[in-house]
């Protein structure tokens, strides 16, 4: 069973649709900690404001539930940011699973913020990226991004490099949206579901 953590954030439907397209069975949207803990894979989605999302996660006690998980967990976009130490968006302390902070893109001439569209990923590590060529394009929509750190498993450049994805133990996170990244995104989701992570 794949549990998608339901903490009243947007974007859940597109994740469910993407899992359906790759033939994933038994996908459950839930806020029940016991059910989440019993899943083989857990996905923490997220769209919107990091501090509001963190507050919603805490209010339902799901932050402690997520931190204690032992199976592979994938955070997507804001879901991943909540797994970092701290976010500048709303100056909020997050779960501290990944060893880095999330900061706003620094404005500079010609740099579009939000970072929106297809950008390439480099220095790919872990089986999450099995079968993905260096320089592949994935879809991003965000104004805050995680720093590079020891947990970085892919890098993207937008006015400087940041972590496009992170991993620490059984925890994984992508700043990009695999569910909107065409066939490349589908391979990444399939890797998350099928590979030994």
């Amino acid at each position: 069973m794949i549990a998608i953590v339901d903490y009243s954030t947007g974007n859940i439907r597109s994740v469910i649709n993407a899992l359906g397209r790759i033939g994933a069975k038994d996908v459950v949207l839930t806020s029940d900690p016991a059910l989440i803990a019993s899943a083989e894979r857990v996905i923490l989605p997220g769209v919107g404001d990091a501090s509001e999302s963190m507050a919603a996660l805490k209010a339902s006690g799901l932050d402690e539930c997520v931190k204690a998980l032992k199976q592979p967990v994938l955070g997507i976009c804001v879901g991943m940011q909540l797994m970092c130490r701290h976010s500048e968006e709303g100056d909020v302390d997050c779960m501290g699973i990944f060893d880095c902070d999330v900061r706003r893109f620094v404005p500079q001439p010609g740099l579009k913020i939000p970072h929106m569209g297809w950008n390439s990923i480099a220095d790919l590590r872990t089986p999450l990226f099995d079968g993905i060529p260096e320089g592949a394009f994935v879809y991003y929509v965000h104004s805050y991004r995680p720093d590079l750190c020891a947990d970085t498993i892919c890098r993207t450049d937008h006015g400087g490099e940041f972590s496009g994805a992170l991993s620490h133990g059984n925890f994984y996170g992508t700043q990009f949206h695999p569910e909107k990244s065409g066939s490349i995104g589908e391979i990444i989701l399939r890797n998350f579901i099928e590979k030994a992570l």
Partner: protein
Amino acid sequence: MVAKRIIPCLDVKGGRTVKGINFVGLRDVGDPIELGRRYSDEGADELVFLDISATQEERGTFASLVSRIAENISIPFTVGGGISSIDDAARLLDAGADKVSVNSAAIRNPELIDSIASRYGSQFIVIAIDARQVDGRWLATTHGGTRPSDKELFSWAKEAQDRGAGELLFTSMDHDGTRAGYPLETYARLADELSIPVIASGGAGNIAHIAEVLTTGRADAALAASIFHSGEIPIPELKKELLKCKIPVRI
């Protein structure tokens, strides 16, 4: 570096695409989902579905179509046409649209941009402006270019950005359908004055026109309908040519 985007636009009426679409080997060309998937497989970076329905009944069909599109397409898609309230936008978001584009309704009621952006985020709202030149000034029009307004292009685009629009889709009604190319200086000025991405639309007749608007015109994306639908410019070939011109595109 963010890739320049190529965006096919499909006109939908009562759940079917209405412009002649000419994909080799595709017999039934009216199904928007099949066409969307086809464009997605060919390397389109995003899709725009424009609802040109005339009746309420057809509009209802469109909303249910959006949810089937969302289930079947793995790239971002925008829906537009007839969105005049936050409830319209909410319905389409619930159906699975990644973005909505608003045009005439935002000119009538600019606060619509603020309310959609503050509820769903700037990434969810595209401001579409159709404008034509009148005595040397670019003036926005409504209702598919048929009615003039008093909104001047550059100030209206800036206002829409400040109100929370996340992207600008600008169509020159003087160039649309001419196949003679885009107003490059106008696009370059928009890129200078705005911080949000600019999508160029209307006027392309060949690959060179698209290359120009993405370089000299500094647009972030090019949207087109008939040149893709007719099969005249296949997207894989277009992208190959753009790469030869050193324009970053996703292959």
